[in-house]
């Protein structure tokens, strides 16, 4: 596979936050429920009450519904607080858990100074969506599909 294609299938993001490195790491992992758009972005049938990343290699990454039911999302592949965490995302294009499916999400927390952290995120392996990638196209593009949901996220994020 050539470099261009690889690049196309990796999403890279960076955000600088006015928070110490340890706080940034903690909020991202231990307090994921405080910022993850749980209202719309979850897989369980009941409302999502919590998003949990167990703090260790092999730890589970899952959501817990208000009914207490846990729905797996993936697991922790690398755990190096406060600088780096590598998560396995195992939700396929149908938003269902699939142990054979893997996208890697690597997050690096770079201390710019004592009170500032640059968070670099890399979401890799979109090719794993395989056939589903093409099939998602319509969903993503339709007003009632993911595109519409993202508009909702944006509204919440901007408040």
């Amino acid at each position, binding site marked *: *596979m050539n470099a261009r*294609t690889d690049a*196309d*299938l990796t*999403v890279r*993001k960076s*955000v600088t*936050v*006015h*928070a*110490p490195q340890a*706080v*940034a790491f*903690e*909020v*991202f992992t231990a*307090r994921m429920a*405080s*910022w*993850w*758009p749980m*209202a*719309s*972005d*979850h897989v369980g*049938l*009941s*409302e999502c009450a919590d998003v949990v990343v167990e703090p260790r290699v092999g730890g589970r990454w899952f959501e817990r519904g208000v009914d207490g039911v846990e729905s797996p999302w993936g697991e922790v592949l690398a755990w190096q607080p406060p600088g780096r965490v590598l998560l396995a995302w195992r939700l396929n*294009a*149908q938003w269902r858990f699939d142990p054979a499916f893997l996208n890697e999400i690597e997050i690096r927390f770079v201390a710019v100074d004592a*009170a500032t*952290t640059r*968070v670099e*995120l890399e*979401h890799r392996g*979109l*090719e794993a*969506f*395989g*056939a*589903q*990638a*093409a*099939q*998602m*196209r*319509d*969903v*993503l*593009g*339709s007003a*009632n*599909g*993911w595109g519409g949901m*993202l508009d909702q*996220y*944006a509204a*919440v*994020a*901007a408040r």
Partner: protein
Amino acid sequence: MQSVKGKRMLSVIDYLPMKTPDIAGRARAFAALGDATRLQVFQLVSRRPLSVADIAGQLPVSRPAVSQHLRVLADAGLVTCESLGTRNIYRPDSDALASLRGFVDSLWDVGLARFRIEAEAVARERAAPRTRKERR
């Protein structure tokens, strides 16, 4: 469309790939994937770019038959073809991958924006002596 607690449930039709969101386009895509061999060809190409020979080597199908299947998939907007020397390399329609990438991109734009607000709120809270002992 049915929904469970506000979450829209997606139907099979929603997952159908196509260039245009019209019924005729959906019908073409359905028809294109409605053949077991063609569906296998599409799945192989979706995983990585392949030539006709690559595909024929992985399926019990002749090269001309593979070519014909690819032509149908291309007409339905599911795969694209690129000439590489003497070979034609097939890959999933780039629009489809671009959309997928755009989705993940937006997901993290929003997620990280929310994350930044939260992280900075926690940092402020801890920096303020008044509220320091209330943390956690």
